[in-house]
């Protein structure tokens, strides 16, 4: 059995962590980077670039570079969220089967779980490199406010990437789990999570051995990306004023401006004003390239950001009221997500809770660390002789016919040639589950560097012979100078009393950092053939001085030069910046909740709540349905998730069909339908005919997500065509 890792699959950045020797630690790539930008670029060579190299291609190849689509996963093509997004990105969206959303890159359509799968494959490769062994299981985090379809789609992404998904975990809950490793007494905490694309507020009661989520709420369409866009709008207006040219008229130019806006925004977290050189966005009326220098102040940014942040505060206030508490009753407020680095966000949160937020967690990495802790706790399984009961989506997959509506494998000009009998990498075996996947042998193109050794006799191949394939074309190496960062210059007006936050966890640097010696092999090292050896990370618990502080309930050493073990400089630095956490002996029990009410349609377009929002999971609710007309053999039940009593105002999950009923007078047939939310917050349905006590078929026709076998097979095939770098 391989390692189990925690993955924070973020809108902007993805972070990987694992528990090694009782310490949860963020894993670094070959260049020592801990944040993997969640950007996927389809290189003309057929290779899929993920991370910083892909992020740079947002500027030169914007139409084939997909970013920030995570909040749209599991959303229907005709949903408001996708409609609004369609015009905002330089790449194209297209409609897939069953109203699902796909993106176009180099004339091939990819479902959104596939895009996430590319990121996850890279994350998995990073972890395998850092841990020196195969990784086949993961806890993947999602925004707390994700609905059933978004969770199910994320799970599919994990499977496509060759990972067994141990749990879909809510991001704020993961953060709380990581934070709670070091607390001594019971605390009520609030986690305010403002990420690149989504916002969540989660309220928890942490007792010694049970971490109970009291309530959660949020907005999956509100985050730092929106601010980047608004700031780019603001910058566009300056350009119009000076050159009478609107960069928004060209998606490519606007994409560049958005990229610059993001850099400006980040720098305004620590500076009061930033000067930005702007170029490459178009031409003047005279045909000269536009170049200009613009000064943007924090005050301007705050003015733009204020309505967004106020919305988050309103959501937070409301969720606190729902559980009958007052904001100041919380013992701690934890800030999570890169966007909380904005001083405005911290200030408004402080005002709401009447206390300064807890700054001793690394807002970028704490979620991945919590996911790693949960992965470690759930990975003690003996391998699970039997699979879980099939979810609604699985049931659908089974009941669907095999005819794919145009979902068959499409010819791909970028396909890499693979011998038909090439072996399958160990990790990829996991996706070969009976419900969905019949893994194409072509998946062998997915190799990792170095190839994961398989010390466990249960894993499949011990050594992966390199499949014969076309030599990959040269890839752009990460540039030492960031493409745009070099052009920008700051007028550093120093701020007094720079917040601690600015030091904890540096912002992602575009250039590589020197490789760390003890955590990672040098980038060019030959594949490690030392099978069965201990993980390459060797992390001892911190020295006594530091250990004492941790045990004393102080999460971070107040000063980085604590007396520690001199042989562990990297480990100590990792603790100091919040990239490592000592874990408790026994993980506490996490009782999480479902963020949204589960509803069925009733009379006149209304809906009834079956499972209320903030109900702990797993949970279930049974309800009896009757036939409405004589000799009726089929009953349809429409299911949605959301908080509106009007059925149509909620997110439609699908339609449940109860068939094979006994034809008789109306009202005579009683069907007991049980709706179950599992620990991932994913719905499954079963039905029983109450008279005959026999199970009735209950197939859920899922809307807006590609979950049946033929579609998933096509996704697997498309994954296999691309190497990830």
């Amino acid at each position, binding site marked *: 059995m391989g390692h189990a890792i925690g993955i924070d699959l973020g809108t902007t950045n993805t972070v990987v962590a694992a528990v090694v020797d009782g310490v949860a630690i963020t894993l670094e790539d070959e260049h020592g980077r801990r944040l993997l930008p969640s950007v996927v670029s389809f290189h003309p060579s057929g290779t899929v670039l993920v991370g910083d190299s892909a992020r740079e291609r947002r500027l030169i190849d914007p139409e084939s570079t997909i970013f920030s689509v995570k909040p749209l996963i599991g959303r229907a093509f005709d949903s408001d969220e996708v409609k609004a997004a369609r015009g905002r990105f330089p790449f194209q969206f297209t409609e897939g089967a069953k109203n699902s959303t796909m993106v176009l890159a180099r004339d091939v359509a990819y479902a959104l779980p596939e895009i996430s799968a590319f990121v996850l494959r890279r994350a998995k490769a990073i972890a395998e490199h850092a841990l020196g062994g195969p990784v086949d299981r993961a806890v993947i985090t999602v925004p707390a406010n994700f609905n059933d379809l978004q969770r199910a789609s994320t799970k599919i992404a994990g499977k496509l990437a060759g990972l067994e998904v141990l749990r879909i975990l809510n991001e704020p809950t993961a953060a709380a789990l990581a934070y709670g490793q070091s607390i001594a007494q019971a605390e009520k905490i609030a986690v305010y999570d403002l990420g690149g694309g989504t916002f969540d507020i989660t309220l928890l009661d942490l007792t010694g051995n049970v971490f109970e989520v009291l309530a959660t709420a949020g907005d999956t369409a509100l985050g730092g990306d929106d601010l980047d866009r608004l700031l780019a709008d603001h910058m566009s207006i300056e350009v119009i004023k000076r050159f009478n040219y609107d960069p928004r008229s060209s998606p490519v130019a606007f994409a560049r401006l958005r990229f610059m806006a993001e850099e400006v925004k980040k720098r305004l977290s620590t500076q009061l004003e930033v000067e930005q050189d702007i170029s490459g966005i178009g031409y003047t009326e005279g045909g000269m390239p536009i170049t200009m220098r613009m000064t943007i102040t924090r005050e301007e940014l705050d003015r733009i950001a204020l309505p967004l942040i106020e919305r988050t505060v309103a959501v937070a206030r409301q969720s606190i009221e729902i559980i009958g508490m007052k904001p100041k009753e919380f013992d701690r407020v934890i800030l999570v997500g890169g966007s909380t680095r904005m001083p405005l966000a911290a200030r408004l949160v402080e005002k709401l809770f009447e206390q300064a937020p807890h700054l001793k967690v690394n807002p970028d990495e704490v979620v991945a660390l919590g996911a790693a802790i949960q992965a470690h706790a759930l990975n003690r399984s003996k391998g699970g002789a039997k699979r879980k009961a099939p979810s609604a989506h699985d049931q659908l997959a089974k009941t669907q016919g095999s005819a794919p509506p145009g979902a068959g494998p499409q010819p791909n000009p970028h396909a890499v040639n693979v011998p038909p009998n090439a072996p399958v990498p160990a990790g990829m075996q996991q996706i070969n589950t009976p419900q969905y996947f019949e893994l194409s042998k072509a998946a062998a193109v997915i190799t990792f560097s170095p190839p994961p050794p398989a010390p466990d006799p249960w894993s499949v191949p011990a050594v992966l012979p390199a499949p014969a394939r076309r030599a990959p074309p040269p890839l752009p190496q990460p540039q030492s100078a960031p493409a745009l960062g070099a052009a920008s210059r700051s007028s550093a007006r120093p701020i007094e009393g720079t917040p601690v936050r600015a030091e904890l966890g540096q912002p992602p640097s575009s250039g590589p950092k020197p490789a760390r010696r003890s955590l990672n092999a040098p980038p060019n090292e030959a594949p490690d053939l030392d099978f069965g050896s201990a993980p390459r990370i060797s992390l001892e618990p911190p020295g006594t001085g530091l250990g004492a502080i941790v045990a004393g309930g102080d999460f971070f050493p107040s000063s980085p030069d604590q007396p520690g073990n001199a042989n562990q400089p990297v480990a100590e630095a990792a603790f100091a910046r919040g990239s490592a956490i000592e874990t408790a002996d026994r993980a506490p029990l996490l009782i999480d909740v479902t963020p949204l009410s589960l509803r069925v349609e009733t009379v006149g*377009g209304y809906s009834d709540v079956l499972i209320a929002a903030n109900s702990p999971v797993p949970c279930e609710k049974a309800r009896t349905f009757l036939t409405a007309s004589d000799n009726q053999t089929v009953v349809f039940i429409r299911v949605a998730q959301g908080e509106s009593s009007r059925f149509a105002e909620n997110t439609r999950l699908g339609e449940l069909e109860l068939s094979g009923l006994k034809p008789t007078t109306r009202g005579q047939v009683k069907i007991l339908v049980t709706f179950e939310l599992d620990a991932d917050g994913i719905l499954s349905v079963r039905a029983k005919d109450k008279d005959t006590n026999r199970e009735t078929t209950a197939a859920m026709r899922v809307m807006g997500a590609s979950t049946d076998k033929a579609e998933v097979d096509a996704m697997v095939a498309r994954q296999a065509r691309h190497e990830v770098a």
Partner: protein
Amino acid sequence: MASPITFVVWAESLETMNYYDILRVAFDASPAEIQKAFHDLSLNTHPDRFVEEPVEVGEAAASVFKRLVEAYGVLRRPPLRTRYDAELRKSTGAAEPAAGSRFDEHAVVAKKTFEQRTLHMIARNPKAKQYAAKADLFLSNGQLEEARIQIISAYQHDPGNEELKERLDILYEALALEPP
């Protein structure tokens, strides 16, 4: 190693218990006591506590945990707890609730059909149909109060139409009004 049978028997025993008995708390338990009881029982029944056991054990334990969640979901919220207590007293006639089973706070009406006929279809004469059609329109716009008035008018022109009456009752419950 725990046996799945233990949990199957436990889950079955919960079928006839009221929510207080399920959580093993007194009728006058404080919110803190209820939470403590839920936590203690969760540690023994949450499926995540059985990752080292065969899958069947975790599933059997989960069937108990889900009933705990159901009980906790009602007892931890004071307004629901009050309603539940009232229902328990009604069903037993005692001062303290005794046996009682499931409580579906969201089920407006137990009897509900899911292939809806419009009110226009339900009304049996032209005059009633005229009001019923208006009510359908109001309902589709979410104007419950306006719809209620129209259904009452329809019912006055079509007395004894049980299905129409039933729809009116559903609407009253949606509006949280007591029918006259």
